[in-house]
């Protein structure tokens, strides 16, 4: 496991244990994607509002803790600040507020908003003839929302090839409305579609750095909820929104490779 990805998983476990909040399994499924986005996109933690930056939106907002930890480890703020996670008057809510947290470009939480916003930003960059790109991370459960498909249709029709959609295919909807044949579905929506191992940073990097070619890109990232801790993977539903006790912490930290 990539060193930074392991550190972020440790941060998430510690902060969840400390705060009593956090969706740990869903956070663990997106960490390599976050790692890859912040490694490949143009951004500057010393000048977070710089005019040339690319934009990243975490549309599946319940993975906010993973985003905070990645931002902290990318230099946006000290990791110690995130220990207020979910507390009254903390900047770091269980869903992120862009008007409070440096580096967060969009406040999310209700599913199905980020891809439409990202399409609007991507269109803005086209209108301005800017080379800036937009990255948006959506969940498979989120893709139950019709607004996701609306926005992809519009983005493809407008040829927004500066839009990169990362699809966290962690099969969270296996008990409800699964998104089967995801690659075929996104292709049918006229998106350039890649399928990668969502826990392999190099594979994600390769897809994210593919040059624009006239169509929005969707990276179907096959992931596991709780990836990195055997217990979380095996007992995924019971850990959906649970924080570890001190004893469980030792076990989970020990399971990280």
């Amino acid at each position, binding site marked *: 496991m990539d060193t930074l990805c392991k550190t972020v998983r440790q941060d998430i476990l510690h902060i969840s244990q400390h705060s009593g909040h956090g969706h740990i399994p869903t956070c663990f499924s997106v960490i390599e994607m976050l790692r890859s986005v912040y490694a490949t996109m143009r951004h500057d933690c010393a000048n977070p509002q710089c005019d040339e930056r690319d934009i990243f939106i975490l549309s599946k907002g319940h993975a906010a803790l993973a985003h905070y930890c990645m931002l902290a480890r990318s230099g946006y703020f000290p990791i110690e600040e995130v220990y207020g996670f979910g507390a009254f008057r903390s900047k770091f809510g269980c869903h992120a507020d862009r008007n409070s947290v440096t580096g967060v470009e969009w406040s999310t939480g209700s599913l199905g908003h980020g891809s439409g916003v990202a*399409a609007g930003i991507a269109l803005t960059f086209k209108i301005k003839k800017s080379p800036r790109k937009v990255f948006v991370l959506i969940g498979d459960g989120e893709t139950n929302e019709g607004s996701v498909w609306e*926005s992809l249709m519009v983005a493809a029709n407008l040829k927004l090839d500066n839009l990169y959609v990362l699809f966290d295919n962690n099969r969270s909807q296996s008990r409800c409305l699964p998104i089967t044949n995801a690659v075929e579905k996104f292709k049918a929506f006229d998106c350039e579609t890649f399928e990668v191992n969502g826990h392999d940073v190099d594979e994600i990097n390769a897809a994210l750095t593919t040059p624009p070619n006239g169509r929005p890109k969707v990276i179907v990232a096959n992931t596991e909820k709780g990836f990195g801790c055997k217990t979380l993977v095996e007992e995924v539903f019971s850990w959906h929104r649970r924080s570890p006790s001190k004893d469980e912490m030792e076990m989970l930290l020990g399971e990280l490779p």
Partner: protein
Amino acid sequence: MRNHFKDIVLKLAEKDERVVLLLGDISVYLLKNFSDRFPDRLYNAGICENTLVSMAAGMSSQGLHPFVHTIAPFITERCYEQVKLDMCYNRAGGNIVSCGGSFDYAWDGATHHCYTDLELMRMLPGMEVMQPGNKKELGTLIESQYANGNASYFRIPADEHDLDLPVEFGKANIVLHSDSAPLTIATAGPILKNVHEACQELDVNLLYFHTIKPLDAQVLSRYAETQILVVHDAFGLSEAISSTINAKVKYHGIPDKFCCYYGTLDDIRGLLGLDVEGIRKTILKELGEL
């Protein structure tokens, strides 16, 4: 009136390159001049109001001044959460311009009637809500508010009132005033025409609001000692007044049932007692009971 909107946005686009239109497959032919002139600043994006609003919020967050335009129920009720979260909570802003408010599309029936939009928009923190009643108000309000970075809602009416009143965002007009009047009528939008006519030769005050939010509390407070009667073919104004001053406020407008009739705007107004005769009858009843 939509023609006038076309002229307004074309004029704005000529002097402000940040003006962009997002259409929900409406007014496309009407805005042909705009798209011919500025092909990369008009997008007939699709019949997908959720996405239109989210996109507009994203565009606004990056310094453009988008106008999202389609029919009132679809761009307010259907995509309410997108307006609430993407435009308002994110403080991204953007301009929503609707047509077909209240019963402007009377003949299309209850699916196209929209009398909740003003109140829904008013409840959202940071939203500006305007119901222009004629061309002058539409032009003045759009020009003064479109580029301020806030989320703004403008309703293009199908008809208009014929009073030439001063227009300033957030300011109400005192159309009729009598020191002895026990009753103050409040109204908004083009129905002012009917309300004004119904008030003739009666000892009443008449207040007119083209801006529902922020409401002009200063003007309203001068009439707090009188009975207030809101006459309005929508929700929004009555609730705004009730939550602004501590006064007796009554409402004459939309009943608690769907309007399952077609016909014309005047047909529906007549049915609801919002024609001149119905409004005058209501006012006289109030005056008799005071």
